[in-house]
């Protein structure tokens, strides 16, 4: 085994390009996952079966199939229907959509955790449905869900290398291209370590947040 620091320093410019793409995908993907997930969670609770069942089926389907294949589907099949996006945009939509089905479960668990008395109190005060959601249920649910949502952002970080397979060059994509061009291995190690260096402090932060919010 021969480790060469020169290779590492040659790789660094590409590495930072990759980091920027990873964080772009992560930031926009998380926003998408958070908003879509809330929409799924509320629609799944609808009393109208023709709304809740299709939403439930679609989210279950997305949740039970691999992100990798979904990315291929979005990148190769969806443009045939006339909507074409760049590789990075496709990757972001794929990540956001896939993880929205997870955040939907988190929101569901958070909403289920609000005591039934809160719903009954809202009914007793004859609050309109919208007001019940926005002023009573969601503010209490949010406190519970923030740590779990944060954890899924870290999970998403670890799944972000998949967008390299459709040609959006984030950290791993850059490492792979560099290693193939130079016949070296150091780039993979750099990226592997980078994931731990980002993921571990991030989740310690979430843990601190959890201690603060859930008491």
């Amino acid at each position, binding site marked *: 085994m021969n480790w060469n620091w020169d290779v590492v320093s040659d790789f660094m410019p590409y590495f930072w390009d990759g980091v920027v793409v990873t964080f772009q995908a992560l930031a926009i993907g998380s926003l998408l996952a958070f908003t879509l997930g809330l929409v799924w969670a509320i629609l799944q609770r609808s009393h109208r079966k023709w709304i809740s069942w299709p939403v439930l089926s679609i989210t279950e389907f997305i*949740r039970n199939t691999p992100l990798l294949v979904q990315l291929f589907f979005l990148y190769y099949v969806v443009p045939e229907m006339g909507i074409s996006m760049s590789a990075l945009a496709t990757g972001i939509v794929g990540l956001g959509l896939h993880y929205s089905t997870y955040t939907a479960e988190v929101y569901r668990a958070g909403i289920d955790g609000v005591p039934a008395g809160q719903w009954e109190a809202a009914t007793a005060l004859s609050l309109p449905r919208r007001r019940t959601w926005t002023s009573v249920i969601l503010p209490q649910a949010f406190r519970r869900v923030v740590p779990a949502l944060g954890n899924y952002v870290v999970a998403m970080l670890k799944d972000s290398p998949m967008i390299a397979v459709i040609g959006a060059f984030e950290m791993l994509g850059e490492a792979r291209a560099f290693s193939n061009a130079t016949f070296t291995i150091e780039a993979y190690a750099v990226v592997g370590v980078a994931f731990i260096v980002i993921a571990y402090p991030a989740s310690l932060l979430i843990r601190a947040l959890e201690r603060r919010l859930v008491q």
Partner: protein
Amino acid sequence: MSSGIFTEWFLPGVWITIQVTLYSAALAAVVAFGVGIARTHRLWIVRFVAGTYFEIFRGTSALVFMLWMAFAFPLMFGWQFVPMAAGVLALGLTYGAYGSEIVRGALQAVTAAQREAGIALSFTRGQRLRRIELPQAWPEMIPPFNNLLIELLKGTALVSVISVADMTFAGNLSRLATSESAPAYTLLLVCYFVIAFALTRGMRALERKAKAGLGQTPKKGPLSGLLSRKLNPEGEMSQARAGTAGGQG
């Protein structure tokens, strides 16, 4: 998808996917129980080593580890895995780390009085674990294991990246060969869903059996056979935590 690719690549690909799932699930189960039990060990050094394993494998990406095993490992040690072995090892070790959190959590949830009763009856540590703690913790592990197994199945699609000829590989081949991607990828998604559904049914049967051993019956919800596991609020939060780095502080 043309019939040649379907019979030559796709059908064997389904079998490869199932094989990779089973092998890595078996490896993950061994790792999960080994590391999970070690993390409740009384010696701090054993807990520390097991905890470090857990944090490292949970902190890195399965795909990065898999590519490392397939491409960097042979260059570093001059010794190469069969691609499928590299995939199975990467998946088994990574998902085993997630699973160890489930095992640890379920073992710690067994009430202390049970362990004390075992000590009072002068059971050895191994006997306590085998005859008292694991039988009670086991039914609690199954629903989160079910979700993890589905995650593992989805993870097997990654082996196509290190050119193991699983069904995702066949789907890509079909796109390249026929320049028609819609049927191949749609079929692929449906296949994964069907396998996930079958696994969920199997795990549910296992759960019924395990719970019956404790004189309980699992709760039935709407659509309960069709869906992935709906966990209670605490379960959902700990599932989110198990999949990410940064554990018990």
